[in-house]
């Protein structure tokens, strides 16, 4: 039993719903009690979808449990098939139905339908949403293509030459409730098209079962989000010899590496290598002089595996930040996140508990947080600027404008989204600096609202109330005066460090000089 106050991921059947809702001509019969329909609002409210998810809930009640719930399942399947006429039927159960073991998938298969039926077994008491999405996409791909396995030769990635056409690829992994998937697909298709590569199928987003059957007409697969598509890509590789890409094209370096990888796999010469660096404004913006102040900014990163790893690389190599924290809630990607953290000489945080993340954030004392909507709240409480880089989805993460994370435009979006909150942070500092000027209006509200000012007040009142620190160290007038000149966002850290130094050296009174001694000591 695990005490959970808030969860980054939903249950695995919500992952299955993400696949079903992303696609066309599919219906999902979910053996589930009243209340599980809440998941519809994730799609209709957060994604603002104008269609209901293609899901029928059997809605069994306590009084059904003594009787024949299996009959109830069959009735719902029959009605759903008749009404929605899906080309492929997904059948599964949510957590409660798993306990009563009606085996709805097996029931559906015995009902004599001629459409393919995918029996989804998603263990609700051990797995979570992304796993459920991945498993559903994999089972669906397998069901629709397994008959073609024996009759097909292994796919030669170079066959496009013999066929006398442009190479074709599939883009796998984008789904509803995935972070900026809608726009990433457009960006990646545009980039591939520029390189003379055609998109065969995008799945699951916008695909139909027919499209899944057409996957094998492409030469290779682009695995755009490992959390969703890796299992399917691996199966297609094993059974059809289709190679797939490993690089996630987020950030300039990864986008270029991605393009290289695609070209290598297709044996397609890369002709515009030099041009690529200039496709995005990020490299120049990062190089331009006013970005100097970005150097060594302490950044704390937490999100899904794909976006957290990509963010760490961009932060370190493309913006010149210092990564002081890296973590993920995607247990399936813990190994990769740990490896990236190791390269950065830090320890990865793998957890589903947002309070642990908040604690780690506090300890790391970052100047910028890149996280989920939950980290945005935690950062707000701590008065630290934040940019959102990952699911779980919030209505704000489905912007009206084109706003990808991947490719060239994605890099532009990332530069703006990460740097603007920092500039706001700087503004905060300026407000602090100029607050004694007569023009300054008391109660000036910054973007951080009351929280930022409160942090200041806490520190200030701390200083006023307890002249002496807990260890009996006294702050002299000059020491305190100097401390107030330190920018607010590092003031807490400077205070602790100076006291630590004073204890270490046995200095009973902290003056302005002690502050500078400590600064030199810790730098």
């Amino acid at each position: 039993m695990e005490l959970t106050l808030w969860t980054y991921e939903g249950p695995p059947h919500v992952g299955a719903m993400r696949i079903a809702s992303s696609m066309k001509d599919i219906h999902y019969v979910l053996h589930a009690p009243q209340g599980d329909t809440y998941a519809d609002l994730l799609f209709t409210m957060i994604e603002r979808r104008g269609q209901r998810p293609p899901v029928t809930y059997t809605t069994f009640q306590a009084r059904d449990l003594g009787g024949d719930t299996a009959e109830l399942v069959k009735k719902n399947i029959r009605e759903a098939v008749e009404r929605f006429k899906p080309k492929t039927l997904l059948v599964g159960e949510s957590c409660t139905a798993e306990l009563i073991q009606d085996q709805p998938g097996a029931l559906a298969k015995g009902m004599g339908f001629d459409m393919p039926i995918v029996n989804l077994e998603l263990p609700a008491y051990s797995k979570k949403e992304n796993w459920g999405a991945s498993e559903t996409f994999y089972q669906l791909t397998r069901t629709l293509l397994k008959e073609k396995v024996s009759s097909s030769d292994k796919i030669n990635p170079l066959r496009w030459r013999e066929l006398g056409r442009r190479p074709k690829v599939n883009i796998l992994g984008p789904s509803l409730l995935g972070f900026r998937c809608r726009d990433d697909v457009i960006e990646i298709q545009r980039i591939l098209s520029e390189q003379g590569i055609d998109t065969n199928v995008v799945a699951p987003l916008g695909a139909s079962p027919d499209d899944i059957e057409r996957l094998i007409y492409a030469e290779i697969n682009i695995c755009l989000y490992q959390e969703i598509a890796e299992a399917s890509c691996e199966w297609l590789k094993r059974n059809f010899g289709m190679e797939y890409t490993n690089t996630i094209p987020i950030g300039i370096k990864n986008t270029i590496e991605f393009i290289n990888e695609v070209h290598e796999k297709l044996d397609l010469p890369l002709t515009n290598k030099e041009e690529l660096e200039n496709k995005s404004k990020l490299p120049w913006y990062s190089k331009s002089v006013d970005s100097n102040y970005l150097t060594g900014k302490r950044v704390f990163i937490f999100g899904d595996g794909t976006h957290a790893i990509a963010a760490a690389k961009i932060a370190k190599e493309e913006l010149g930040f210092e990564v002081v924290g890296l973590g993920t809630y995607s247990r399936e990607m813990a190994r990769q996140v740990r490896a990236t953290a190791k390269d950065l000489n830090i320890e990865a945080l793998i957890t589903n508990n947002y309070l642990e993340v908040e604690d780690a954030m506090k300890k790391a004392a970052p100047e910028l947080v890149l996280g989920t909507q939950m980290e945005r709240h935690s950062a707000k409480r701590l008065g630290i600027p934040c940019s959102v880089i990952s699911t779980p989805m919030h209505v704000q993460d489905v912007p009206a404008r084109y706003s990808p994370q991947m490719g060239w435009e994605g890099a532009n979006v990332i530069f703006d989204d990460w740097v603007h909150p920092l500039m706001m942070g700087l503004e905060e500092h300026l407000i602090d600096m100029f607050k004694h000027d007569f023009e300054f209006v008391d109660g000036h509200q910054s973007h951080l609202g009351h929280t930022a000012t409160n942090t200041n007040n806490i520190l200030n009142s701390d200083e006023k109330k307890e002249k002496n620190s807990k260890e009996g160290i006294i702050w002299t007038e000059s020491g305190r005066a100097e401390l107030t000149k330190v920018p607010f966002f590092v003031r807490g850290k400077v205070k602790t460090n100076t006291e630590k130094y004073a204890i270490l050296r046995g200095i009973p009174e902290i003056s302005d000089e002690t502050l500078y001694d400590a600064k030199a000591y810790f730098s």
Partner: protein
Amino acid sequence: MSKVEFNKETGPREVFCGLTSIVWLHRRMPDAFFLVVGSRTCAHLIQSAAGVMIFAEPRFGTAILEEKDLAGLADAHEELDRVVNDLIARRPEIKTLFLVGSCPSEVIKLDLATVAEKLNKRFLGQVRFVNYSGSGIETTFTQGEDGALKTLIPLMESSNEEKLLLVGTLANNVEDRFKKIFRNLGISNIESFPPRQSTELPKIGKNTKVLLTQPYLSDTVRDLKHRGCEIISAPFPLGIEGSTKWFLAAAKAFKISELKVHEIISPLINRAKLALDSHKEILKGKRLFLLPESQLEISLARFLHNECEMDLIEVGTPYLNKDLMKEEINLLPDNTKIVEGQHVEKQLDRVRESNPDLVVCGMGLANPLEAEGISTKWSIEMVFSPIHGIDQAADLAGLFSKPLKRNQILTSKTLVTH
């Protein structure tokens, strides 16, 4: 009773389960914690239904069952013990802990009553433990509050003092208004259940006169009756008419003259009617379809027809307690079609066929209907907004007129392009 048409329907439903009521109950009683014993689905449901991220450590959570908890119930009890201990160590300010049963905990027959009993002994004088079920296999949305209140009744001490007990969660400001009006009527001893602090439970007995503020409290009413309380029969205080009759019923129970009631509330009524006018202008003659969810549908239908002159196509309700709803049903126009239960697909067919001007529905259905060109009002807002009482009648009407007004604005052409 008016000639109302009753129908029943079964099939797939699109309604929340009783766990959802934790979203307002935990705010009503800030010294209580609601611990759902359930699955990740339960945790995800509550956080999604609340529609907001958590701004501070919340006073509700889920003890998520894992595979090993399902293997043996003994272990599950032990695990729950551990979780509760951790929680209380972390949140020492908690005075009452609600153990809330869910679909999975009910199916595996986890005995939360026994767990609560044991914990009560261990934490005697520090924390009180109670339990109820908010499971979807037994409860619908607002029914969760019924379970939570019912479980508190045995903790309420007995007293034969005469008092008016308002039963059902109200917004604090509305509660204050009501109490002021009752005091003006000459009823001085008024208490609310649930109280604002979980430990300050009202005492009850044969001179307690219960006035319901919400229509979804069947079990609570039954247990209050068993404790000797008198239940005042009245419509619910939604809109001017409902609220007036509600005040009158209370006054009658306290032998206060009708004249006195009218004297006190007439100015409020006049003011409210004035405020209601602009909304009525928009709502008048518009055709309304209510899908089942909050259990407030019948009262809302009565208000929107009788006071806002809307036409009722169909009034859905998750379940119907004819006894509790008697006074409301009497006020409905003849031939009102009430449908108890739901087959969501068939009901949506009827929505499309009847071409309504406004549909009251859950959040899962609102945008898809809007995309089909049908204006909607999502029902969850009714349980979060202060809508009770005469003073709030215009605000209540505003919840329904706003989507229509917005539609009008967006489809009109008022500015000439220069």
